Protein backbone atom coordinates (compact mmCIF):
# COMPACT_ATOMS: atom_id res chain seq x y z
CA UNK A 1 0.00 0.00 0.00
CA UNK A 2 1.56 3.25 -1.14
CA UNK A 3 0.96 6.78 -0.09
CA UNK A 4 -1.28 8.68 -2.52
CA UNK A 5 1.15 11.00 -4.36
CA UNK A 6 -1.64 13.38 -5.33
CA UNK A 7 -2.44 15.29 -2.18
CA UNK A 8 -4.28 18.62 -2.13
CA UNK A 9 -1.16 20.64 -2.94
CA UNK A 10 -0.44 18.62 -6.10
CA UNK A 11 -4.09 18.85 -7.04
CA UNK A 12 -3.93 22.66 -6.96
CA UNK A 13 -0.83 22.67 -9.20
CA UNK A 14 -2.51 20.39 -11.71
CA UNK A 15 -5.76 22.35 -11.82
CA UNK A 16 -3.81 25.59 -12.30
CA UNK A 17 -1.93 24.10 -15.28
CA UNK A 18 -5.15 22.85 -16.84
CA UNK A 19 -6.94 26.16 -16.50
CA UNK A 20 -4.05 28.11 -18.02
CA UNK A 21 -3.51 25.70 -20.87
CA UNK A 22 -6.94 24.37 -21.78
CA UNK A 23 -9.39 26.85 -20.22
CA UNK A 24 -11.23 24.20 -18.20
CA UNK A 25 -11.80 25.44 -14.66
CA UNK A 26 -12.04 22.59 -12.14
CA UNK A 27 -10.92 24.76 -9.23
CA UNK A 28 -14.38 24.80 -7.63
CA UNK A 29 -15.05 21.09 -7.94
CA UNK A 30 -15.21 19.20 -4.63
CA UNK A 31 -11.61 18.26 -4.04
CA UNK A 32 -12.00 14.87 -2.37
CA UNK A 33 -13.81 13.33 -5.31
CA UNK A 34 -11.52 14.99 -7.83
CA UNK A 35 -8.43 13.77 -5.97
CA UNK A 36 -9.76 10.25 -5.95
CA UNK A 37 -10.60 10.27 -9.67
CA UNK A 38 -7.21 11.75 -10.59
CA UNK A 39 -5.38 9.22 -8.43
CA UNK A 40 -7.36 6.46 -10.11
CA UNK A 41 -6.26 7.70 -13.56
CA UNK A 42 -2.66 8.12 -12.38
CA UNK A 43 -2.64 4.48 -11.20
CA UNK A 44 -4.51 3.16 -14.25
CA UNK A 45 -2.03 4.74 -16.66
CA UNK A 46 0.95 3.66 -14.53
CA UNK A 47 2.73 6.99 -14.14
CA UNK A 48 6.02 6.62 -12.23
CA UNK A 49 5.75 10.05 -10.62
CA UNK A 50 3.52 13.07 -10.18
CA UNK A 51 5.99 15.19 -12.22
CA UNK A 52 5.62 12.89 -15.23
CA UNK A 53 1.83 12.91 -14.94
CA UNK A 54 1.85 16.69 -14.78
CA UNK A 55 4.18 16.96 -17.77
CA UNK A 56 2.07 14.61 -19.91
CA UNK A 57 -1.04 16.67 -19.19
CA UNK A 58 0.75 19.85 -20.22
CA UNK A 59 2.41 18.43 -23.32
CA UNK A 60 -0.31 16.19 -24.77
CA UNK A 61 -3.77 17.61 -25.59
CA UNK A 62 -4.99 14.11 -26.51
CA UNK A 63 -4.13 12.98 -23.03
CA UNK A 64 -6.01 15.94 -21.58
CA UNK A 65 -9.07 14.74 -23.47
CA UNK A 66 -8.71 11.38 -21.77
CA UNK A 67 -8.31 13.21 -18.45
CA UNK A 68 -11.69 14.97 -18.87
CA UNK A 69 -13.35 11.71 -19.86
CA UNK A 70 -11.96 9.82 -16.87
CA UNK A 71 -12.23 12.29 -14.02
CA UNK A 72 -15.86 13.22 -14.57
CA UNK A 73 -18.33 10.76 -13.06
CA UNK A 74 -20.54 9.25 -15.74
CA UNK A 75 -22.53 6.74 -13.72
CA UNK A 76 -26.22 6.90 -14.55
CA UNK A 77 -29.15 4.58 -15.14
CA UNK A 78 -32.64 4.58 -16.65
CA UNK A 79 -35.53 5.54 -14.38
CA UNK A 80 -33.29 5.71 -11.32
CA UNK A 81 -35.39 6.35 -8.18
CA UNK A 82 -38.70 5.11 -9.63
CA UNK A 83 -40.73 7.20 -7.17
CA UNK A 84 -39.15 10.32 -8.68
CA UNK A 85 -40.35 9.29 -12.14
CA UNK A 86 -43.76 8.39 -10.76
CA UNK A 87 -44.05 11.98 -9.49
CA UNK A 88 -42.99 13.27 -12.90
CA UNK A 89 -45.81 11.22 -14.46
CA UNK A 90 -48.51 12.17 -12.01
CA UNK A 91 -47.67 15.75 -10.97
CA UNK A 92 -45.34 17.37 -13.49
CA UNK A 93 -46.27 16.08 -16.97
CA UNK A 94 -49.96 17.09 -16.60
CA UNK A 95 -48.76 20.68 -16.02
CA UNK A 96 -46.33 20.54 -18.95
CA UNK A 97 -49.17 19.18 -21.12
CA UNK A 98 -50.86 22.60 -21.00
CA UNK A 99 -47.98 24.21 -22.92
CA UNK A 100 -48.08 24.30 -26.74
CA UNK A 101 -44.43 23.31 -26.84
CA UNK A 102 -42.31 21.65 -24.12
CA UNK A 103 -38.58 22.22 -23.67
CA UNK A 104 -36.63 20.12 -21.18
CA UNK A 105 -32.93 20.36 -20.26
CA UNK A 106 -30.98 17.44 -18.81
CA UNK A 107 -27.85 19.19 -17.49
CA UNK A 108 -24.93 16.80 -16.96
CA UNK A 109 -26.75 13.93 -18.69
CA UNK A 110 -23.66 11.65 -19.05
CA UNK A 111 -24.53 8.78 -21.44
CA UNK A 112 -28.15 9.92 -21.71
CA UNK A 113 -30.12 7.20 -19.88
CA UNK A 114 -32.26 9.83 -18.10
CA UNK A 115 -33.05 11.59 -21.36
CA UNK A 116 -34.34 8.34 -22.88
CA UNK A 117 -36.30 7.68 -19.66
CA UNK A 118 -37.96 11.08 -19.96
CA UNK A 119 -38.76 10.52 -23.63
CA UNK A 120 -40.55 7.27 -22.70
CA UNK A 121 -42.63 9.11 -20.08
CA UNK A 122 -43.49 11.87 -22.56
CA UNK A 123 -44.43 9.35 -25.22
CA UNK A 124 -46.77 7.53 -22.85
CA UNK A 125 -48.37 10.85 -21.86
CA UNK A 126 -48.91 11.67 -25.56
CA UNK A 127 -46.56 14.67 -25.30
CA UNK A 128 -43.40 13.56 -27.07
CA UNK A 129 -44.42 14.97 -30.46
CA UNK A 130 -44.48 18.51 -29.02
CA UNK A 131 -41.41 18.17 -26.80
CA UNK A 132 -37.71 18.80 -27.27
CA UNK A 133 -35.20 17.27 -24.87
CA UNK A 134 -31.76 18.87 -24.59
CA UNK A 135 -29.02 16.67 -23.13
CA UNK A 136 -25.71 18.33 -22.24
CA UNK A 137 -22.50 17.26 -20.56
CA UNK A 138 -18.95 18.58 -20.19
CA UNK A 139 -17.56 15.28 -21.52
CA UNK A 140 -17.74 14.89 -25.36
CA UNK A 141 -17.27 11.12 -25.21
CA UNK A 142 -20.43 10.48 -23.19
CA UNK A 143 -22.41 12.84 -25.44
CA UNK A 144 -21.36 10.66 -28.41
CA UNK A 145 -22.74 7.62 -26.59
CA UNK A 146 -25.95 9.42 -25.67
CA UNK A 147 -26.52 10.26 -29.34
CA UNK A 148 -26.39 6.58 -30.25
CA UNK A 149 -28.96 5.49 -27.66
CA UNK A 150 -27.36 2.08 -27.31
CA UNK A 151 -27.07 0.65 -23.80
CA UNK A 152 -25.91 -2.71 -22.41
CA UNK A 153 -28.63 -5.34 -22.61
CA UNK A 154 -27.47 -6.62 -19.21
CA UNK A 155 -29.08 -3.54 -17.60
CA UNK A 156 -32.51 -4.04 -19.15
CA UNK A 157 -33.95 -6.26 -16.45
CA UNK A 158 -33.17 -3.66 -13.81
CA UNK A 159 -34.53 -0.85 -15.99
CA UNK A 160 -37.64 -2.85 -16.69
CA UNK A 161 -38.22 -3.19 -12.91
CA UNK A 162 -37.64 0.55 -12.47
CA UNK A 163 -40.10 1.16 -15.29
CA UNK A 164 -42.85 -0.86 -13.64
CA UNK A 165 -42.22 0.78 -10.25
CA UNK A 166 -42.38 4.20 -11.90
CA UNK A 167 -45.94 3.46 -13.02
CA UNK A 168 -45.21 2.12 -16.51
CA UNK A 169 -47.90 -0.20 -17.88
CA UNK A 170 -46.46 -1.19 -21.24
CA UNK A 171 -43.88 -3.82 -22.05
CA UNK A 172 -40.54 -2.05 -21.49
CA UNK A 173 -38.81 -4.27 -24.05
CA UNK A 174 -41.01 -2.68 -26.70
CA UNK A 175 -38.84 0.44 -26.50
CA UNK A 176 -35.63 -1.17 -27.71
CA UNK A 177 -34.25 -3.76 -30.08
CA UNK A 178 -31.80 -6.19 -28.52
CA UNK A 179 -28.84 -7.29 -30.58
CA UNK A 180 -26.33 -9.57 -28.85
CA UNK A 181 -25.31 -7.66 -25.70
CA UNK A 182 -26.65 -4.27 -26.81
CA UNK A 183 -30.07 -2.64 -26.67
CA UNK A 184 -30.79 0.08 -29.21
CA UNK A 185 -33.58 2.44 -28.23
CA UNK A 186 -36.39 3.32 -30.60
CA UNK A 187 -35.51 6.09 -33.07
CA UNK A 188 -38.85 7.83 -32.41
CA UNK A 189 -37.49 8.66 -28.93
CA UNK A 190 -34.14 9.83 -30.28
CA UNK A 191 -35.88 12.07 -32.83
CA UNK A 192 -36.94 14.57 -30.16
CA UNK A 193 -33.50 14.89 -28.53
CA UNK A 194 -30.61 17.31 -29.03
CA UNK A 195 -27.25 16.46 -27.49
CA UNK A 196 -24.39 18.88 -27.08
CA UNK A 197 -21.39 19.59 -24.86
CA UNK A 198 -21.95 22.31 -22.28
CA UNK A 199 -19.80 23.25 -19.31
CA UNK A 200 -21.87 24.35 -16.32
CA UNK A 201 -18.84 26.19 -14.93
CA UNK A 202 -18.19 28.48 -17.88
CA UNK A 203 -20.98 28.28 -20.47
CA UNK A 204 -24.10 30.43 -20.52
CA UNK A 205 -27.79 29.82 -20.71
CA UNK A 206 -28.83 28.72 -24.22
CA UNK A 207 -32.62 28.55 -24.05
CA UNK A 208 -35.69 28.77 -21.82
CA UNK A 209 -37.14 25.59 -20.40
CA UNK A 210 -40.18 24.43 -18.47
CA UNK A 211 -38.23 21.62 -16.80
CA UNK A 212 -34.54 21.33 -15.95
CA UNK A 213 -33.11 18.11 -14.52
CA UNK A 214 -29.66 18.06 -12.96
CA UNK A 215 -29.29 14.98 -10.80
CA UNK A 216 -26.11 13.98 -8.97
CA UNK A 217 -24.02 16.69 -10.61
CA UNK A 218 -24.07 19.42 -7.97
CA UNK A 219 -22.64 17.07 -5.30
CA UNK A 220 -19.32 17.40 -7.16
CA UNK A 221 -19.30 21.22 -6.90
CA UNK A 222 -18.26 23.47 -4.04
CA UNK A 223 -20.88 25.75 -2.53
CA UNK A 224 -20.02 28.92 -4.51
CA UNK A 225 -20.11 27.08 -7.81
CA UNK A 226 -23.38 25.41 -6.80
CA UNK A 227 -24.85 28.88 -6.25
CA UNK A 228 -23.75 30.09 -9.66
CA UNK A 229 -25.17 27.00 -11.35
CA UNK A 230 -28.47 27.49 -9.51
CA UNK A 231 -28.54 31.02 -10.88
CA UNK A 232 -27.87 29.71 -14.38
CA UNK A 233 -30.80 27.31 -14.00
CA UNK A 234 -33.02 30.05 -12.60
CA UNK A 235 -32.19 32.23 -15.58
CA UNK A 236 -32.91 29.33 -17.96
CA UNK A 237 -36.23 28.38 -16.38
CA UNK A 238 -39.58 29.91 -17.33
CA UNK A 239 -41.70 31.22 -14.52
CA UNK A 240 -43.67 28.29 -12.99
CA UNK A 241 -41.11 25.90 -14.48
CA UNK A 242 -39.65 22.95 -12.55
CA UNK A 243 -36.14 22.13 -11.35
CA UNK A 244 -35.31 18.51 -10.44
CA UNK A 245 -32.22 17.47 -8.45
CA UNK A 246 -30.64 14.23 -7.22
CA UNK A 247 -32.00 12.44 -4.15
CA UNK A 248 -29.33 13.92 -1.83
CA UNK A 249 -29.24 17.40 -3.31
CA UNK A 250 -31.20 20.43 -2.22
CA UNK A 251 -32.09 23.96 -3.19
CA UNK A 252 -32.22 24.82 0.51
CA UNK A 253 -28.94 26.74 0.85
CA UNK A 254 -29.05 28.36 -2.57
CA UNK A 255 -29.60 32.05 -3.34
CA UNK A 256 -32.72 31.23 -5.39
CA UNK A 257 -34.44 29.12 -2.70
CA UNK A 258 -36.91 31.82 -1.66
CA UNK A 259 -38.52 31.88 -5.09
CA UNK A 260 -39.03 28.13 -5.36
CA UNK A 261 -41.47 25.75 -3.71
CA UNK A 262 -40.85 22.03 -3.32
CA UNK A 263 -43.31 19.68 -5.04
CA UNK A 264 -44.28 16.86 -2.63
CA UNK A 265 -41.49 14.74 -1.16
CA UNK A 266 -39.34 14.37 -4.25
CA UNK A 267 -36.41 16.65 -5.07
CA UNK A 268 -38.46 18.75 -7.46
CA UNK A 269 -38.97 22.49 -7.03
CA UNK A 270 -41.32 24.86 -8.85
CA UNK A 271 -40.39 28.42 -9.62
CA UNK A 272 -43.04 30.68 -8.10
CA UNK A 273 -41.84 34.06 -9.32
CA UNK A 274 -39.08 35.70 -11.30
CA UNK A 275 -36.14 37.50 -9.71
CA UNK A 276 -37.14 41.02 -8.63
Amino acid at each position, binding site marked *: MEFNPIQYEELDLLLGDIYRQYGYDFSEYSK*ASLQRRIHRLFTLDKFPSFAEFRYRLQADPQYFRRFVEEITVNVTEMLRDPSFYRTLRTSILPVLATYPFIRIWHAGCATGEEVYSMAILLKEAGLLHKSLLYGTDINPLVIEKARKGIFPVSQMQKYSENYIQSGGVNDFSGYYTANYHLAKFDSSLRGRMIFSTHNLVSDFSFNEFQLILCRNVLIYFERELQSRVFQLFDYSLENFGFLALGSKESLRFSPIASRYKQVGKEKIWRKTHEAG
Partner: protein
Amino acid sequence: MKPDKLLLIGGSAGSLQVMLSVLTSVGNDFPMPVLVILHRNSSFDSTLEELFFSRTAMVTKEVEEKEQPVAGMVYLCPADYHVLIEEDRSFSLDYSERVHFSRPSIDVTFKSAADVYRAGTIAVLLSGGNADGAEGLAYIKVQGGMTVVQDPGTADVPYMPQHAISRMQPDHILAADDISTFIRSLAGYR
Protein backbone atom coordinates in the same frame (compact mmCIF):
# COMPACT_ATOMS: atom_id res chain seq x y z
CA MET B 1 -13.66 23.66 16.29
CA LYS B 2 -12.81 21.13 13.59
CA PRO B 3 -12.35 17.63 14.98
CA ASP B 4 -8.82 16.23 14.69
CA LYS B 5 -9.97 12.65 15.13
CA LEU B 6 -12.59 10.54 13.40
CA LEU B 7 -13.87 7.09 14.32
CA LEU B 8 -14.89 5.03 11.30
CA ILE B 9 -16.85 1.79 11.64
CA GLY B 10 -17.24 -0.32 8.51
CA GLY B 11 -19.35 -3.43 8.27
CA SER B 12 -21.39 -5.61 5.99
CA ALA B 13 -23.45 -8.77 6.51
CA GLY B 14 -23.68 -9.72 10.19
CA SER B 15 -22.26 -6.44 11.53
CA LEU B 16 -25.36 -4.55 12.62
CA GLN B 17 -25.64 -6.04 16.12
CA VAL B 18 -21.98 -5.35 16.91
CA MET B 19 -22.31 -1.83 15.60
CA LEU B 20 -25.32 -1.17 17.80
CA SER B 21 -23.70 -2.62 20.91
CA VAL B 22 -20.55 -0.58 20.32
CA LEU B 23 -22.51 2.61 19.90
CA THR B 24 -24.79 2.00 22.88
CA SER B 25 -21.71 1.65 25.08
CA VAL B 26 -20.72 5.31 24.65
CA GLY B 27 -22.61 8.53 25.22
CA ASN B 28 -23.06 11.79 23.39
CA ASP B 29 -19.96 13.14 25.14
CA PHE B 30 -17.87 10.89 22.90
CA PRO B 31 -14.92 13.12 21.95
CA MET B 32 -15.02 12.67 18.18
CA PRO B 33 -17.51 12.17 15.34
CA VAL B 34 -18.37 8.60 14.31
CA LEU B 35 -18.90 7.69 10.67
CA VAL B 36 -20.66 4.40 9.96
CA ILE B 37 -20.21 2.73 6.58
CA LEU B 38 -22.67 -0.13 6.35
CA HIS B 39 -23.44 -2.04 3.17
CA ARG B 40 -27.16 -2.08 2.82
CA ASN B 41 -30.08 -2.19 0.49
CA SER B 42 -31.39 1.24 -0.50
CA SER B 43 -34.98 0.31 0.32
CA PHE B 44 -34.20 0.07 4.06
CA ASP B 45 -32.85 3.59 4.14
CA SER B 46 -34.96 5.34 6.75
CA THR B 47 -35.53 2.26 8.89
CA LEU B 48 -31.82 1.97 9.63
CA GLU B 49 -31.53 5.56 10.71
CA GLU B 50 -34.49 5.14 13.07
CA LEU B 51 -32.99 1.94 14.45
CA PHE B 52 -29.70 3.64 15.31
CA PHE B 53 -31.53 6.63 16.66
CA SER B 54 -33.72 4.59 19.00
CA ARG B 55 -30.96 2.32 20.26
CA THR B 56 -28.01 4.63 20.88
CA ALA B 57 -27.46 7.59 23.22
CA MET B 58 -25.70 9.45 20.45
CA VAL B 59 -27.59 11.52 17.92
CA THR B 60 -27.59 9.66 14.62
CA LYS B 61 -28.18 11.18 11.24
CA GLU B 62 -27.55 10.43 7.61
CA VAL B 63 -24.56 12.21 6.07
CA GLU B 64 -25.50 15.30 4.08
CA GLU B 65 -23.20 16.74 1.47
CA LYS B 66 -20.94 19.57 2.75
CA GLU B 67 -21.95 18.88 6.34
CA GLN B 68 -19.30 19.56 9.00
CA PRO B 69 -18.92 16.64 11.41
CA VAL B 70 -19.42 17.30 15.12
CA ALA B 71 -17.95 15.29 18.01
CA GLY B 72 -20.44 13.00 19.75
CA MET B 73 -22.59 12.52 16.65
CA VAL B 74 -23.03 9.35 14.61
CA TYR B 75 -23.21 9.79 10.83
CA LEU B 76 -24.54 7.06 8.53
CA CYS B 77 -23.45 6.84 4.92
CA PRO B 78 -26.54 7.08 2.72
CA ALA B 79 -27.42 4.07 0.61
CA ASP B 80 -26.07 4.21 -2.95
CA TYR B 81 -23.51 7.00 -2.37
CA HIS B 82 -19.83 6.93 -1.47
CA VAL B 83 -18.85 9.31 1.33
CA LEU B 84 -15.59 11.27 1.03
CA ILE B 85 -13.90 13.70 3.41
CA GLU B 86 -12.83 17.16 2.26
CA GLU B 87 -9.71 18.90 3.50
CA ASP B 88 -11.87 21.17 5.72
CA ARG B 89 -13.35 17.96 7.27
CA SER B 90 -16.75 18.38 5.61
CA PHE B 91 -18.43 15.35 4.01
CA SER B 92 -18.84 14.94 0.25
CA LEU B 93 -21.12 12.53 -1.55
CA ASP B 94 -20.01 10.71 -4.67
CA TYR B 95 -22.07 8.62 -7.06
CA SER B 96 -19.21 7.03 -8.99
CA GLU B 97 -18.78 3.33 -9.77
CA ARG B 98 -19.28 0.72 -7.05
CA VAL B 99 -16.13 -0.59 -5.37
CA HIS B 100 -16.18 -4.27 -4.39
CA PHE B 101 -19.79 -4.24 -5.66
CA SER B 102 -20.52 -1.72 -2.93
CA ARG B 103 -21.72 1.87 -2.73
CA PRO B 104 -21.05 3.10 -0.11
CA SER B 105 -17.67 1.39 -0.16
CA ILE B 106 -15.67 1.06 3.06
CA ASP B 107 -12.35 1.31 1.18
CA VAL B 108 -13.36 4.58 -0.45
CA THR B 109 -14.28 6.29 2.82
CA PHE B 110 -11.37 4.82 4.82
CA LYS B 111 -8.83 6.08 2.29
CA SER B 112 -10.38 9.50 1.96
CA ALA B 113 -10.55 9.93 5.75
CA ALA B 114 -6.90 8.90 6.12
CA ASP B 115 -5.78 11.58 3.64
CA VAL B 116 -7.38 14.24 5.85
CA TYR B 117 -7.28 12.96 9.45
CA ARG B 118 -3.95 11.13 9.00
CA ALA B 119 -2.84 9.79 12.41
CA GLY B 120 -6.19 10.91 13.86
CA THR B 121 -8.01 8.25 11.84
CA ILE B 122 -9.37 5.34 13.89
CA ALA B 123 -11.03 2.58 11.90
CA VAL B 124 -12.88 -0.57 12.92
CA LEU B 125 -13.76 -3.28 10.40
CA LEU B 126 -16.51 -5.73 11.35
CA SER B 127 -18.26 -8.81 9.99
CA GLY B 128 -19.03 -9.17 6.29
CA GLY B 129 -18.92 -11.39 3.24
CA ASN B 130 -17.06 -9.01 0.99
CA ALA B 131 -13.44 -7.95 0.35
CA ASP B 132 -14.21 -4.28 1.04
CA GLY B 133 -12.25 -2.51 3.81
CA ALA B 134 -8.88 -4.29 3.68
CA GLU B 135 -7.22 -1.84 1.32
CA GLY B 136 -8.62 1.13 3.24
CA LEU B 137 -7.25 -0.22 6.52
CA ALA B 138 -3.82 -0.73 4.93
CA TYR B 139 -3.89 2.87 3.74
CA ILE B 140 -4.86 4.17 7.18
CA LYS B 141 -1.80 2.39 8.58
CA VAL B 142 0.42 4.09 5.98
CA GLN B 143 -0.98 7.41 7.19
CA GLY B 144 -0.27 6.53 10.81
CA GLY B 145 -3.87 5.94 11.91
CA MET B 146 -5.19 3.20 14.20
CA THR B 147 -6.74 0.01 12.79
CA VAL B 148 -8.97 -2.52 14.52
CA VAL B 149 -10.41 -5.69 13.00
CA GLN B 150 -13.10 -7.87 14.54
CA ASP B 151 -11.76 -11.32 15.40
CA PRO B 152 -13.15 -13.40 12.51
CA GLY B 153 -13.92 -16.20 14.99
CA THR B 154 -16.51 -13.93 16.64
CA ALA B 155 -17.98 -12.58 13.39
CA ASP B 156 -21.29 -13.81 11.99
CA VAL B 157 -19.73 -13.66 8.53
CA PRO B 158 -15.94 -13.95 8.94
CA TYR B 159 -14.83 -13.34 5.33
CA MET B 160 -14.36 -9.56 5.51
CA PRO B 161 -12.27 -9.36 8.71
CA GLN B 162 -10.36 -12.48 7.64
CA HIS B 163 -9.55 -10.94 4.29
CA ALA B 164 -8.32 -7.76 5.97
CA ILE B 165 -6.04 -9.68 8.34
CA SER B 166 -4.56 -11.61 5.41
CA ARG B 167 -3.78 -8.34 3.61
CA MET B 168 -2.43 -6.16 6.41
CA GLN B 169 -1.51 -6.25 10.07
CA PRO B 170 -4.09 -4.40 12.14
CA ASP B 171 -3.12 -2.75 15.44
CA HIS B 172 -5.76 -4.80 17.25
CA ILE B 173 -7.79 -7.91 16.49
CA LEU B 174 -10.64 -7.91 18.99
CA ALA B 175 -13.59 -10.13 19.87
CA ALA B 176 -16.99 -8.53 19.32
CA ASP B 177 -17.42 -7.82 23.05
CA ASP B 178 -13.97 -6.27 23.42
CA ILE B 179 -14.59 -3.77 20.63
CA SER B 180 -16.99 -1.85 22.90
CA THR B 181 -14.35 -1.75 25.65
CA PHE B 182 -11.81 -0.48 23.16
CA ILE B 183 -14.13 2.26 21.93
CA ARG B 184 -14.90 3.27 25.51
CA SER B 185 -11.19 3.54 26.22
CA LEU B 186 -10.89 6.01 23.34
CA ALA B 187 -13.34 8.23 25.14
CA GLY B 188 -11.43 7.91 28.42
CA TYR B 189 -14.37 5.98 29.99
CA ARG B 190 -13.68 3.07 32.27
